[in-house]
């Protein structure tokens, strides 16, 4: 059990809802992942008020906690308005804040994210801020009232895994009591296991599962990797070193001199 935003959770995997081959496969993949928090985009699936959104109805019917996001918002104003709309539509004060700074690789705008985070936390939102892996940015977001951090591993959808382990490690070490979720850029289960071994509280995934040849199986693979990584972290990893240390002592091994 762990806790984020006052909610106790079993699973450390959060999952997105974009780019699956079909809603049916999405549903099965979410079930297979065991995720209890599922993100949903308002802008990308934008509707005029009053238009029916069956896709949202499907998500609402699932036994998961929905985390609306502001993906696709390019300005503070847009992100704040989207968060307010999400609060009404989904009846939650949770918001995954994304303020996009670069339209092509969807890199978040650190300045806009901090500004929007301040406005939203003042307005009673529980802000899950999507951010680059910058230490100072992390500090500013916490100052703005965020109670957690969501640094990227790599640009969204890139599948590159953790491209700057040093930066992420620093964030982890500097904010030991703050839940930190690695969000975006993971491609393989091993990437997620690594993030968990580094002591992060959870992982948020979408493309790596949705675009897999078999999304349902990939969701299971990530769930297992995340469990394994977390267990590894809790078990305490042995310190690594640059040369071999045999687990069986060589001295006393019969015929050891034959290998000379």
């Amino acid at each position: 059990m762990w806790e984020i935003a006052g909610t106790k959770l079993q699973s450390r995997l959060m999952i997105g809802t974009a780019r699956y081959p079909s809603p049916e496969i999405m549903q099965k993949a979410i079930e297979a992942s065991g995720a209890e928090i599922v993100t949903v985009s308002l802008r990308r699936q934008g509707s005029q008020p009053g238009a029916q959104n069956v896709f949202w109805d499907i998500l609402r019917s699932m036994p998961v906690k929905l985390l609306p996001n502001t993906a696709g918002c390019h300005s503070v104003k847009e992100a704040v308005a989207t968060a307010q709309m999400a609060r009404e539509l989904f009846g939650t004060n949770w918001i995954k804040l994304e303020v996009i700074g670069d339209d092509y690789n969807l890199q978040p705008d650190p300045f806009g994210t901090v500004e929007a985070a301040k406005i939203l936390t003042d307005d009673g939102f529980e802000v899950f801020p999507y951010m680059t892996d910058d230490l100072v940015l992390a500090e500013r977001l916490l100052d703005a009232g965020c109670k957690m951090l969501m640094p990227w591993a790599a640009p969204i959808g890139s599948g590159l895994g953790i491209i700057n382990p040093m930066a992420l490690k620093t964030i982890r070490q500097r904010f030991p009591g703050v839940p930190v979720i690695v969000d975006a850029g993971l491609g393989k289960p091993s990437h997620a296991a690594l993030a968990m071994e580094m002591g992060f509280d959870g992982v948020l995934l979408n493309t790596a599962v949705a675009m897999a040849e078999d999304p349902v199986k990939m969701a299971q693979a990530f769930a297992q990797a995340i469990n394994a990584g977390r267990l590894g972290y809790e078990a305490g990893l042995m310190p690594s070193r640059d040369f071999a240390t045999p687990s069986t002592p060589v001295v006393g091994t019969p015929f050891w001199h034959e290998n000379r």
Partner: protein
Amino acid sequence: MSQTKGTVGIAGAGILGRLIACYCLEDGWNVTIFDEGAESPCPMAGITAAGAAAQKCGSGGCPSPSYVAAGMLAPYCEMRYDEPIVPRLGRESLDMWSDIIKKVGGDVFSQRAGSLVVVHQQDKNEFLRLKHMVETFTKEPVMEHVKGAALRELEPEIDPRITEGLYFPLEGQVDSRGMMAALGSHLRKSGAELNFNTKVTSIEPNKITTLFGSFDFDWALDCRGMGAKADLKGLRGVRGEIIIVHAPDVNLNRPVRLMHPRYPLYIVPRPNHDYVVGATSIESEDLSEISVRGALELLSALYSLHTGFSEARIIETATQLRPALMDNSPKIFHGKGLCRINGLYRHGYLISPKIARLVASYLSEGKAESGYEALFETAGK
């Protein structure tokens, strides 16, 4: 008609309803069609989505997807890892289209000059993913990886920064509006009764009820797409936006699909330098006009492919809802005296001929064609 097997009533005169009617007539049935929309709801270029919607054509007050569709016949470009049935239906339909075009006559524009998938370097992974998928699922040689001069030979004018593509020589296209009109005339000539501006209020086994009365048939077929929403659990509309431009400076020989990390975008040439660019894919039943974001994405795709599009004129924009089931695959829900065919999603033109043939054969033989049983589901399940 010298002999008749019985009577078939079809609700919905979209591309699927018309093709089913066509095959049923050939098999010896008497056919009656009902549709809420006008016979020619989208009278060619120059109309906006808002204008078209105001005409209340098609079911649900939108321009029927059958008129808005680009008419790409591209089974391989549309492949998915989990869904081999659509490419298979599409592959069989490709050859059937040639026969249909011959049959309906007229001068419907169509071609089998293949289609080309291209990519900007930064999106190469999407391109490799499609290539891998096609190689995994097809045994026949349906795809050529073309680079440099070979690519230029196919499409001399596309942006020089695009240096490679996937060429699918078997694929083609058909002009959707021309085909809808030609099929309409063909059906009339062949003895079908066509009732436009006739809203269907209910479909039951052996019976179709409209605002003007109830009609009994040996088979009632529901081909209303989104119009069947109240009767089909799990049916949803997926918003798609398209733009048609007139671009005298551009000469593309065949449909070109541009790989993009978020949408597969296609640019489909029509006669006289008109080009259809589409389509966004948005999980919402919002039928309002094209959004600025949608327009920017579509137009950027055009411009990135050929700078000659900068001086093109936008002659039409349209929004439609594609009817999709939960697995995004088509289904034939069958029962005694009633079949509902739905969920053709983005693939109406691609797969309608084969689906129509399967439905017509089912009516005559009472069972699904071998190998296609998975498409059939007992109604009410």
